[in-house]
């Protein structure tokens, strides 16, 4: 019975993530730069991507400053993981998260608010599901040899 309830809960969380992305009104297909531009427009300021040595086992963080935002990822990530991290932070932006979930890290930041890619809270897990939906939109999961097209 517990297993059934868990499966049902998991399906519901995925459905909520799908709905969140659908509500953004994004094109069915878009590129990562186009998604980034959309996030900048949602945020109202430019987002600069860069790699940086991050404390502990943090894989990414998002720092908001007055006139721009910084999206930092660790330099030793694989490309897949890096893009997944970027999508996670952009998911926070699209969900209009008001601040940082991770008080432990705030002392390390020069900005006002921050998000990190960690899955230690239910909210972070929900954000990760939204990031997975965004991965589908930008074609991150598409195979190499197939472009979408007529009858394909």
């Amino acid at each position, binding site marked *: 019975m517990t297993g059934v309830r868990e499966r049902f809960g998991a399906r519901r969380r995925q459905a909520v993530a799908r709905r969140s992305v659908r509500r953004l009104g994004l094109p069915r297909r878009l590129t990562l730069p186009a998604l980034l531009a959309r996030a900048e427009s949602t945020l109202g300021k430019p987002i600069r991507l860069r790699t940086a040595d991050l404390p502990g086992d943090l894989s990414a963080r998002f720092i908001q400053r007055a006139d721009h935002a910084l999206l930092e990822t660790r330099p030793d990530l694989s490309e897949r993981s890096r893009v997944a991290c970027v999508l996670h932070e952009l998911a926070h932006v699209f969900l209009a998260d008001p601040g940082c979930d991770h008080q432990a890290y705030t002392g390390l930041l020069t900005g006002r608010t921050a998000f990190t890619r960690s899955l230690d809270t239910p909210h972070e897990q929900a954000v990760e599901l939204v990031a997975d939906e965004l*991965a589908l939109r930008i074609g991150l*999961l598409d195979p190499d040899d197939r472009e979408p097209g007529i009858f394909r």
Partner: protein
Amino acid sequence: MTLHVWGSIPVWVILTVLVVRLLLVRTQSASVTWLMACCGFVAVGLTINQPDVTTFLAGVTHVPNIADLVGRCLMVCGMFALAQSVEAAARSAKLLRVSRIVVCVVVLLTLVVLFTMVDAPTPTAQFMTVYGDQLPTALYSAVEMTYIAVVIARSAAAVLRGFRSGDGLGRMYWLFVVGAVGLVLLAAIAIALDAVHVAGVDGAVRVLSTVYAPVFLLSMVLLAVGAAGGVLPDAAREFRDWRDTRHRFRSLEPELRRLEAASGHTGLYFTIAWQRRQWRSRLHRLAVEIEDRAREAGQDVPAAATLTTARLRELS
């Protein structure tokens, strides 16, 4: 078997392949989903036109030639689905285009109204041959054929644009274009046939009827093979990828469990009730979480979990 049933065979073949692919792999693009709907509507719409079905439906509904109306309405719906399939392939697809839906509904309503005006008291699978000398019957057929011609011509034009813009459409798509030209020609023949039938020019009716059958059959075969040229190679590759991915799940899931234990952290992978159609998302999540846990545990990422693709490099 009637001519239309013969014409439905290539469409049934494509539909069967698409259904088998969907049952196994569970993933397909919106364009293929609409193509599947198109094949379903067209195959049933053509198959319905045979004596047994005609008699059965007439007995059930007490409308002698309801099968013909249903068949034509299904053909119109099939063409609508074809237009949607082509639209869905565009990067910024607008599938809920009001004008397209309104036109389809108007065509369907017009068919129903004109059908009620035809004096056709006896069920027949040769509706146009038997009742084609009436003006409402000619208009009824002409409305359907015009809609088919317009949709198929627009679809062929979209394929041609795809060739010009280098969308990587294979040579088989040319068969679709030739088949579409054949279907437009067929629509012209059908409308001319309707006109001469009403006018009572029997010689012209005989000549046009003779041309109608081969053009119809050839067009259906070319359209089906042309559409299959896009779908089938892709279906085969998708099946191969799905099978390889299942092997990866079997080998990488124990790795993730081991790394979760070593790092003392868990992710989402084992909490998600994965559906079969989500195999690509599942593989992505597996790869990402293995890397996260390996880093946290201070271990190397297993080589099999490194999924670098050319597309990924493009994104980066």
